[in-house]
Structure formats: structure tokens, C-alpha cells
């Protein structure tokens, strides 16, 4: 399994007089099987757009995204969803689904048009709830859960898709410190124990440093740098990426790089 983007560009709809607004221009990247890649960049740099292109939810204007060498465009939505799952920043269902119902919706790409989920699907959903530590929430109304519980249920829903690749868009953005650690350790576990390949877009440099083995840095719709976390995550790169002076050093106790922002570059 490998997920590859080759020279991918995307424009958001035309605005009067301005023409198409470029969001991504000629982005190429390669996510190897079993890796946990981070996607970093300032607001509006195209992280979310890139994730949508990788998921096949958006179609690139130029270039192509392929899974094991097969262009996503040639696969049906359903076929792509059987292999690639997405965890968005936030999920707001319009109705009061239970956590279990939310997770079972992950089985959708595996079910026929009129099929209802059977015992095998329920077992997969139960396992996904178990893996994310949310089994006790199965019959709770999703909307009444806390932010961290919701995010773990959504991750369980993505796991129920039995995907090879999990794309996560700032999965810890609205979570407090404890939940951030919970979600991080959950992702690490899923990556190590189940071999789920992950691409994680985040603003949290310390999360990326602790979790990801490689990083892609995006700025203004282009790849600024791409490589292993220890190579790419440097004070110089943080400066170029965010216009921020930062102290980047190895934290002995945590065992990974840490980034402490010092100030805005003048």
C-alpha cells in the first residue's frame, strides 16, 4: 500500500473578477505503507484541501492521486472509501445518532445498496469502539458527548471502514491537554499495532514531533520541505513556515523534539 500525489493542483471556484483562487500548486508527496506522516503549515496553506484530494473527495485540477499506483479517479467513491477513511476536524450530525450508529455508518462502503449491517459489521464496530476506548458510550447520544469522546467516536467510525489509510484533519484541535494525549496515544497504537497508515494535518508541532515519522511542510499551496521529522523540524524551517522564531530541541524525558515559540519574526 502506498498513497502518492503527483503534481497535484487545485483551485477553489472563481470569484467575480479575480479568477480561480489557487489552493494547491504542483504538490507531490509519497506516503509509504505503515508510516505516520504529518502535514504542517500555516492557516490557509492548503492542508485540508490536500487531505480532501488524498481522500478522493475533491478531484485535482491537475496531477493525480494514486493508491498503489491506481489513480483514485478511476475508482468509485465506494471503492476508495473501503481503503481510505477520513477523520475531519469536527462532525456535527443533524440528528441524534448514538455513538454506535455513528460508528456503524463507517461500514457504509462495505454494504450493498439495500443491505443492512449484519453480525460481522457489528463485531467490527464493537472492536472499533473498544480500540478507541469508547465501548461504554455505544448507546449514548453522540451530541451529548464531550469533545474528546466525540473525536474518539469519529475515529472509531473511521476505523470501522477497515481502511488501509487514515487521513486526520487536526484531530486534537479542540481538545484539552489530557484528551490531546489520549488521542495521540490512540493514533500511535493504531499505527503500530494495526499497521494503519496515517496522514495527520495539525498545527500542534509538539504533537507532530511526538507522533510522526515524516513531515510535509506546506506553505501557500506548495511543498516547502519534505522528509523525516528530525531532518525537517528545525528552527530554520519553523521560521520559514510560520514566520516565527522558535526554540527546537530534543526533550530528554519526552524522547522527542519539542518546539517552543519565542516570538513573531519582525
Amino acid at each position, binding site marked *: 500500500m502506498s498513497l502518492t500525489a503527483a503534481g497535484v493542483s487545485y483551485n477553489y*471556484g472563481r470569484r467575480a473578477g479575480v479568477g480561480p483562487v489557487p489552493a494547491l500548486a504542483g504538490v507531490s508527496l509519497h506516503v509509504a505503507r505503515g508510516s505516520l506522516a504529518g502535514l504542517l503549515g500555516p492557516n490557509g496553506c492548503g492542508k485540508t484541501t490536500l487531505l480532501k484530494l488524498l481522500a478522493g473527495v475533491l478531484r485535482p485540477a491537475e496531477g493525480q492521486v494514486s493508491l498503489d499506483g491506481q489513480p483514485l479517479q478511476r475508482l468509485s467513491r465506494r471503492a476508495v472509501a473501503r481503503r481510505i477513511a477520513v477523520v475531519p476536524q469536527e462532525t*456535527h450530525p443533524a440528528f*441524534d*445518532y*448514538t455513538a454506535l450508529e455513528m460508528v456503524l455508518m463507517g461500514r457504509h462502503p462495505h454494504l450493498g445498496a439495500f443491505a443492512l449491517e449484519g453480525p460481522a459489521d457489528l463485531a467490527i464496530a464493537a472492536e472499533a469502539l473498544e480500540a478507541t476506548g469508547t465501548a461504554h458510550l455505544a448507546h449514548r447520544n453522540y451530541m451529548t458527548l*464531550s469533545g474528546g469522546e466525540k473525536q474518539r467516536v469519529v475515529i472509531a467510525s473511521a476505523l470501522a471502514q477497515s481502511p488501509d489509510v487514515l487521513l486526520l484533519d487536526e484531530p486534537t484541535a479542540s481538545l484539552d491537554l489530557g484528551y490531546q494525549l489520549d488521542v495521540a496515544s490512540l493514533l500511535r497504537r493504531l499505527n503500530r499495532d494495526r499497521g494503519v497508515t496515517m496522514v495527520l494535518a495539525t498545527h500542534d508541532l509538539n504533537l507532530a514531533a511526538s507522533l510522526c515519522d515524516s513531515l510535509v511542510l506546506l506553505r501557500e499551496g506548495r511543498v516547502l520541505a519534505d522528509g523525516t521529522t528530525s531532518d525537517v523540524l528545525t528552527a530554520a524551517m519553523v521560521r520559514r513556515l510560520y514566520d516565527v522564531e522558535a526554540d527546537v530541541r530534543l526533550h530528554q524525558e519526552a524522547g522527542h523534539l519539542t518546539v517552543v515559540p519565542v516570538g513573531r519574526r519582525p
Partner: protein
Amino acid sequence: MSVTDGVARSGPPVAGLALPRASVRTRLLTAVGGFGTLAAAACILAPLLGTTEISLARVFDRSIPFQDNVDAQIFFVARLPRVLAAALVGSTLASAGVVFQAMLRNPLATPFTLGVSAGASLGAMLVIVLGGTLATGALAFGPFTPVAAASLAGAAMAASLVYWLATRRGYAMSTSVLLLAGVTLNSFFSALIMFVQYIADFTQVYRAARWLMGDLDVGGFGALGSALPLVLVAFALFARLPSSLNLLSLGDDAAAARGVDVVRAQRLAFFSASLATSAAVSLAGPIGFVGIVVPHLVRLIVGVDHRVVLPAAALFGAAFLVLCDLVARTLLAPVEIPVGVVTAMIGGPFFLWLLVRRG
């Protein structure tokens, strides 16, 4: 994880009724069985009740020839078409409501939110008011009366306009544009309807007002037969929708990421629900609140999974409108209350209760 998990675990076990634990198959069969029985019972019993008492035994007494069997005539000629119209319209509006609510991701949407019924009403008003001056007989289209044909045309025009507005900026539908365009069209068409009524004479105004209140007295099986094919097409399309509706109600991207072809599903939902609404309104006028009261009552009973909600709402909608029309026919007998007034009397307070409850 430990602290909050502990809290959640030690919390009270969640109250069961609204949170179904049975498999979706079991819930679907139970709901279809229960609501189906209710709908069938309503359709059989409602024609027996009315200003004149009749007996079921006499209705089906084969020994009396039909032309001498007054009970059978009242049952089959006077009441059954009306009861079946109520069942058809109630079922159609309730399921269209479910589809629009999921597609627009708005539990307070109704089949009339997007202006389809206002367009239909404008079409009907024009024929009712200009009927004397124009050769509107020429408007009769196939099996449809001129008023029904014009209301279908008005509905098609409104739906096309809303669809064009919502897809103008890209090929996926914008639900916010759909809602805004629908609300605007509703006001605009209402103004035109008022204008048309203003230039009409008194009998025309009465007919127009009566049509707008909703009337299930369709006058026989003919009108039913003409609306039925449209409803059947809509229902055949509905059958493909439920699991997509579940996912669409999470948002377009979430649905797409789980394998839904969002553009296709939205189009199918919009087209089928608009067709269903047009057929119901052209048959019986814009009967309000069925499309919101029934879906919500059903959700309170069977949960929110659309694979259960949609068929359950279709069946319960039939029973609900048959019972509302029974009230309309019998409450102040021999005076009839327009059925739209009865559904509004029940639906208005219910709608407010929903708002308060959600708030």
C-alpha cells in the same frame, strides 16, 4: 482518559426508549409491522365513520345488489376515495419531509420549505382565477384536471428555479443557498398569490382560499389514479436513499469520505422529494405540518436511522392524515373543518414544542 472515562462509566445507564439497541433489521421489521397495521386499520375503519352510520357487515354483504346497498355506496363511493387520498397524501408528505430534513441537514425543514408548494399553489390560483376568461380546459394534461396540471407545472417551475440557484456555483448543491432561495421563493409566490386573489371575484376567492386550506375530497378514484404514478416513481427513488440520507446528515465531506456519491445522492433526494411534494399538493392542496410532525413523532419512537425512519414515516403519515381528516369530517358534523386547519391545530403547537425542546 481515565478521569472522564470514570465519570462516564459511573453515570446512570442511559434511558433506553429513544436509544434503540436492537439491530436495524429488527427495528425496521417492528416499525413496518406496527405502523403498517396502524395505517391499514385507519384506512379500513375511517370509511365506516361519518355523519351517516354504516356497518361493515352490510358494506360487504354480497346478497344486496350494489345499487340498493346504501352502506356500500357510502363506503366505496363517498368515503373510500377520500380516505385513500388522505393516506396517499399523508404518506407522501411525511416521507418527503424526512428526505428534505436529512438532505438540508435541518430537522425543522418541511416539504414546503423550498417553495415547491408555493409554486404549485400559484399555478392552481392562476387557473382558478383566470379559469373563466381563458380556455383553461386546454390545460388539462393527460388524466389531470386543469387545476392539478397547473399546480404541477408551478411546482416544476419552482423546483427548477431553486435547483438552478443552488447549483449555479458548482456542481454540488449548496444547502444554505437552497434554504435561502426556498424561503425567498415562498414569500415571493405568496405575494403573487395574494395579487391574483385581489383581482379575482368573490366566488373565485372562495375557491382559491378553499384550495389553499387543503381538501382531500378528491371526488373519486380518477384523481387518485392520476397522482398515483408520480407518487410511485418518487417512492421507488426514495427506496434508494436511506443510507445515503444518514451520511448526508453528517455533512457532505463526511458522506463522501464514507463512499457516498454526494452530488448524485443530493440530486436524487431533491428530485424525488420535490416530485412527491408536487404530486401530493396537486391532488389535495398544500396540507401543512404533516411533513414535519410525522417525521419527528416517528423519530421519537424508532430513533433517527433513516433506514427505519423513512418507511415508518411513510406508513405513519398515511395513518396520521387519515385520522386528521376523520376529525375534520366528524368533529363539527355536519359542518366540515378543512383538513389543513386540523393538521395546523395539531402541528403548530407541536412545532413550537420541538423548538423549545431543542433549544
